[in-house]
């Protein structure tokens, strides 16, 4: 069975500081990895995804994530955050084979960017 653990429920950070949101996954099969962002009272927006190839993935809004197979991690980073980055961030895993479109989500990390 697959599972996703987001190691921090809340991450407070000052504006223009760097940030890392941590995500670990467990799976006995190959997986695809995703980060989604959810702004207050909105649905989920895809930030980036890792399917194969380069382990460093660049996404929208200046975010990037690094896939580390040996540590089963997919941490999200941004070198300089903005107030508008305040939101809930979800790491998700999808099965890397077969036809299922099911995503397994972590519990979420609230990023609070302070001025």
């Amino acid at each position, binding site marked *: 069975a697959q599972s*996703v653990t987001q190691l921090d429920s809340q991450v407070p950070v000052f504006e223009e500081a760097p940030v890392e949101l941590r995500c670990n996954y467990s799976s006995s099969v190959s997986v*695809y990895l*995703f980060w*989604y962002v959810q702004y207050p009272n*909105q*649905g*989920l*927006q*895809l930030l980036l*995804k890792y*399917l*194969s190839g380069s382990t460093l993935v660049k996404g929208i809004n200046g975010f990037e994530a690094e896939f580390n197979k040996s540590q089963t991690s997919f941490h999200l980073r941004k070198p300089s955050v903005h107030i508008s980055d305040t939101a809930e961030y*979800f790491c*998700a895993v*999808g*099965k*890397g084979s*077969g*036809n*299922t*479109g*099911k*995503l*397994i*989500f*972590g*519990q*979420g990390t609230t990023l609070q960017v302070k001025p």
Partner: protein
Amino acid sequence: DAGVTQSPTHLIKTRGQQVTLRCSPISGHKSVSWYQQVLGQGPQFIFQYYEKEERGRGNFPDRFSARQFPNYSSELNVNALLLGDSALYLCASSSKEGTISGNTIYFGEGSWLTVV
């Protein structure tokens, strides 16, 4: 192009009632999935439909059911509502069936269900 659209956006129901939530996928997308997001938690998979056939079911009771229509829109039905069914219900669509290479899953804004 319009994204994934869901209706209604908010609704309040009484325990024991039934609710129907609707979803229109992005034009050309044949796969629709439903997720339940309880406050403070990540979304949980309920159903996936592809080409009008159920392709996956999460760990939800039989009170939850869904269907996909010929135009690929979908409905989620929940019977005998419980207080614990209060949540944001998200619909997602994609062009392909699985999370295979290049297949992005797009989410709608969700339907907020409050059971009182």
